[in-house]
């Protein structure tokens, strides 16, 4: 049985705004930032090293088979992870997660599918995210999986 939870869009919007504010502060700009392209562009424009760049790790994750849990490696222990699919088949939108040590909502869209139907569906929450030293592991909600061959972008910060 494929099921979903409601999206807590208020919480997600607040979290994304806090990330955008941090990016704007570090980047010395007040420009509006649309997720995810402007986030990426703004972060890339921030000088690194002695320039006082945003302290974050980022990368991609592409599973070879459908997996229940994604694992990414950071340079140091982090507190927050934002992960989203670069592209998805069909009509699915992109998904964003603002993930800390507790469950948060995701944005309207889809990133995975239920085993039983193989149909891409709206997904809205994360079952768990755990940080252990330089490893962050994320599980989608309710038996959904990260889709084989789909590239997921991620940014981790804090800590």
């Amino acid at each position, binding site marked *: 049985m494929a099921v979903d939870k409601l999206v807590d869009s208020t919480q997600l919007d607040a979290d994304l705004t806090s990330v955008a504010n941090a990016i704007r502060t570090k980047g010395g700009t007040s420009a509006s930032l649309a997720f995810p392209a402007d986030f990426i562009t703004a972060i890339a424009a921030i000088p690194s090293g002695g320039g006082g760049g945003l302290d974050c790790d980022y990368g991609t994750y592409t599973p*070879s*088979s*459908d997996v229940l849990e994604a*694992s990414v*490696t950071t340079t140091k222990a982090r507190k927050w992870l934002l992960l989203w699919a670069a592209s998805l088949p069909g009509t699915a939108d992109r998904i964003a997660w603002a993930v800390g040590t507790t469950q948060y909502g995701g944005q309207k869209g889809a990133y995975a599918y239920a*085993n039983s139907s193989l149909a891409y569906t709206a997904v809205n929450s994360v079952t768990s995210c755990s940080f252990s030293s330089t490893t962050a592991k994320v599980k989608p909600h*309710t038996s959904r999986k990260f889709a084989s061959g789909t590239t997921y972008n991620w940014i981790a910060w804090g800590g």
Partner: protein
Amino acid sequence: MIFYKQVEDGYIIAIGESLGGVEISEAEYGEIMSVISAKPPRDGDTDYRLREDLTWEAYTVEPEPEPDLDGDEIAEILLGGVPE
């Protein structure tokens, strides 16, 4: 950019850009990505996993348990439906 592959029990679980797993060259990353993009589709209970030699191995997928929903989650689904 650093590229990596995650290997477990002789199977490539995932690849990516950043730290993590076994560091590989960009050329190897591209090669593995091409293979992943051509993954045979799942057929019923038969799915495929990627060996380190970049060949696909068929295996039988074990049935997964039904989701364990609490009352609040059930109520949300019944009252609010599923967002698009």
